[in-house]
């Protein structure tokens, strides 16, 4: 993959700005969305490889957005993030096809190493070496 494109979905302006800054300074192409509706609209225009989604966004929440993305762009990788480290939540994220779950506040190094592992897998999928859709990886997180 040339340069991986990451969509950051978080309603908190400074959290979103910080994540976009940190990722673009690490060489990722980035763009942000403040809510689920905007994320779905932007996704069609920008065609990201990976979506980094906050669980508690206004309107449709993280899980609902994940379900929409699964329907519309199953080849995209998604990472959920939340301040909640509840086990049930993490299990559900895994079951619904997310390939990572990060508990805020996490370290940027943690996010970057997860993104690196995901983009390697996406590359392998592009070469046909692995099958990669949100359904095919159900139950297994990359992190």
């Amino acid at each position, binding site marked *: 993959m040339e340069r991986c494109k990451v969509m950051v979905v978080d309603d*908190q302006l*400074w*959290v979103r*700005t*910080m*994540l976009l*800054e*940190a990722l673009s*300074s690490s060489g990722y192409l980035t763009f942000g969305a403040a809510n689920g509706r905007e994320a779905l609209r932007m996704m069609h225009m920008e065609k990201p490889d990976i979506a980094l989604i906050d669980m*508690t966004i206004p309107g449709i929440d993280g899980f609902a957005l994940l379900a929409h993305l699964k329907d519309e762009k199953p080849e995209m990788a998604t990472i959920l993030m939340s*301040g*909640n*480290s*509840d*086990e049930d939540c993490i299990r559900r994220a895994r079951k619904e096809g997310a390939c990572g779950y990060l508990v*805020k*506040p*996490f*370290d*940027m190094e943690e996010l970057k190493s997860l993104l690196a592992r995901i983009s390697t897998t996406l590359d392998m999928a592009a070469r046909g070496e692995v099958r990669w859709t949100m359904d095919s990886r159900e139950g297994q997180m990359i992190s």
Partner: protein
Amino acid sequence: MDDGLQGRSNDFVNYARVYEETFTENIHSISDDPPIMVKEGKHLVFIKTAEDGESEDEPQVFDVTTSLVEGFGGHLGAIITYEDKSEREKLHKNVSKLKDLNTVEELAASAVHEIKNPIFSIRGFLRLLENSLTQDDKRREYTRIMIAELDRLSKLADDFLMLTKSQGKKGDYVFADRILMEVLKFFEPRFDLIGISCHFETGDEIAPVYIDADQLKQVFINIIQNAIDAMPAGGNIYVGVYSKNKDVIIEIKDEGSGIKKEDEGNIFKPFFTTKENGTGLGLFISKRIIRSYRGTIEFKSEEGHGATFIIKIPASSAVVE
């Protein structure tokens, strides 16, 4: 229910007035000589038994019903039923209190969420700032301290959230050894990093215990984290689970710095900490959790020779698959 009746004194004049006000639908004569009239109806009556009216005693609540008995072409009498509803009323109030408690829990959860968002963005920007400094820049020490302090703040928010969770209320039949194994697995990378060997021993048949699995996990995390912090240069941690009499006993022993004599009475107190980045809530929360499920948590320690924490939880006789 007419709240206006609540709190009225039990002197007879007032009581009669309550009766007049509430049973006015149908009036029947049940006897001509002496003339007795009965009003038919149904109402809740609150009777405050405390004389001063200021006491916190709950008023007694009665459901009063009058019905006529008719026969032989006339009224034979009236049945007046007083049904004591005090217990039901108390239960109803307790349920409302519990609902309020859940609201507090939810409120705390959203407050913690709101606190963690700015912590997260500040932390991230600090990292970016740090990356722009050269490796030998002394200001890196400032960013390191700021990040450590933010992490402490975030941990404090998490611990505070744990405190608001209703304890002892909900639970499940769980096996402490299985939960402990999960926790040890979670700590494995950290053990490797510091050079800690963890020795896990379990008895043949461990009885299940009734507890909230997540909260028990939190207790184990708190104690093992303390053990790790007490051994910065590595060492051994011994973990044992066994059933004895009617208890399940969990022992966690480390070879760390131990607990000072003068600190022994304080370690379970809130905000008491000997760690640079501690919140002082870990053991306090752990004790609260274990006690709320009728268990105990104790320790043995000698300064310089490690510490052993012993958790006892009543075994459950319930059958678990």
